[in-house]
């Protein structure tokens, strides 16, 4: 049980670090959004899963109405909030950036540029 928790923590920390570094490695906002959104969501899934696994381990001894089971449930709700809101806000930022005239750097093709109606 403990080794699973440690593995999940290491994976989650690694992806969160890569997401933060990707913000500096990439040239423009769209590619930065790639790094920021994907890596932090994936890392968050693993870190919250580690918290949930560790607190599920105490259910057998303390029963359903202990603080630990509430911890599991609320961690799960927080995870659902992260997974739902993260891609949506990334989409909002990308759309706003393109409408305000930020061009994708080093782009080989931009279908959206010709199709703009307004």
């Amino acid at each position, binding site marked *: 049980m403990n080794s699973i928790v440690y593995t999940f923590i290491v994976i989650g920390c690694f992806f969160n670090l890569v997401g933060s570094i990707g913000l500096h490695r990439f040239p423009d906002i769209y590619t930065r959004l790639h790094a*920021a959104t994907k890596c932090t969501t994936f890392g968050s899934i693993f870190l919250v899963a580690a918290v949930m696994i560790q607190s599920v381990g105490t259910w057998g001894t303390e029963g359903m109405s202990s603080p630990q089971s509430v911890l599991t449930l609320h961690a799960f709700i*927080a995870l659902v909030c992260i997974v739902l809101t993260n891609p949506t806000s990334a989409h*909002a*930022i990308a759309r*706003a*950036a393109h409408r305000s005239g930020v061009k994708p750097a080093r782009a080989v093709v931009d279908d959206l540029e010709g199709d703009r109606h307004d």
Partner: protein
Amino acid sequence: MWLPVAVFLGVCILICLVRLILGPKAPSRIVGLDTINTLVVVSMVVLGAAFEQVIFLDVAIVYALLSFVTTLYIAKYIEKGKF
């Protein structure tokens, strides 16, 4: 075992903060802000496990939803140029 993880996430937040301060224009800054919001939510969950306090997780849920609304609002501002 959870406190070192929280410190590590704090280091990640500092790295993103550099992008928030440098970021050439407003869109790049808001990408940094969005990343920081996600990392803060995760570190609150981790701190809740460290201190075994459920209230940290409730704050994390509310923070996740409110930061989402904030991001949408700033995106709207960048799009139109006014509130």
